[in-house]
């Protein structure tokens, strides 16, 4: 059975609900920098990291296009292929902006995924705790925190 895993437990339920209702096959919640917060459906860490990096790259590119057009940030981007489609949507939370990458198949549709993405972003905003005080980033902690995050995302 495919499971939803999250670095922060409060995000697990909203993501699982979104995946279930939207009929998404894969989903990734991350920061615009590509730091993964939660995932559903991925089985290999390398796939998560690649998807997060590519998603963050798309968000950065469309952000620059928005600047050129003198527009606020685009909220949702949708690409539809023959067998799969992707939705890449951003929203603000008390802990800063978050980005969701969802991959869906022909059993769903852009309209359905977009509809439930809006509900998902509201659920995440509501569930999101207040931001933590910024900590000093130490090189010694970096690898440990990275390993803890990967462990949480794959329950290894």
């Amino acid at each position, binding site marked *: 059975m495919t499971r939803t895993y999250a670095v922060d437990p409060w995000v697990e339920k909203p993501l699982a609900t979104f995946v279930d209702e939207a009929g998404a096959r894969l989903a990734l919640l991350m920061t615009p920098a590509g730091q993964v917060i939660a995932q559903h459906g991925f089985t290999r860490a390398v796939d998560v990291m690649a998807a997060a990096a590519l998603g963050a790259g798309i968000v950065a590119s469309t952000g620059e296009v928005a600047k050129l057009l003198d527009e606020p940030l685009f909220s949702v981007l949708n690409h539809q292929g023959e067998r799969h489609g992707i939705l890449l949507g951003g929203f603000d939370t008390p802990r800063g902006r978050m980005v969701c990458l969802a991959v869906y198949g022909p059993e*769903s549709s*852009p*309209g*359905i995924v977009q509809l439930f993405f809006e509900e998902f972003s509201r659920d995440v905003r509501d569930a999101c705790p207040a931001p933590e005080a910024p900590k000093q980033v130490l090189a010694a902690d970096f690898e440990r925190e990275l390993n803890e995050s990967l462990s949480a995302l794959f329950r290894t």
Partner: protein
Amino acid sequence: MSGRFQGILDTITRVRGVRGAMIVACNDGLVVADSLMEGVRGNAVAALASSLIKHAANATAASGAGAPQFLHLQGSRGALLAVSGRSEILIVAVAEPSVNVGLVRLELIRAAEAVN
């Protein structure tokens, strides 16, 4: 919205009891054009109606009835009516419970033909 679509939707919303009408891209579940009263969540109705038609298509195919042409979903506080057109287009109406279903169906079929 283009004047052509507006005219097509107006013929549906003129029916007494109709609270809104939409042209929906059936595969995408996205709104092509709409004419809705306040309080009707067009995006949600479009996405869910197209999903409903897809599931209904599985049921009609399994029963040997062919592709669904008309869908009427009666709720306690209103009704959802939809007609599939060619070109993957769906014409959807949201109506009050007391609406003349036959008349709305006729206008939806005419609208689907006009869009095609």
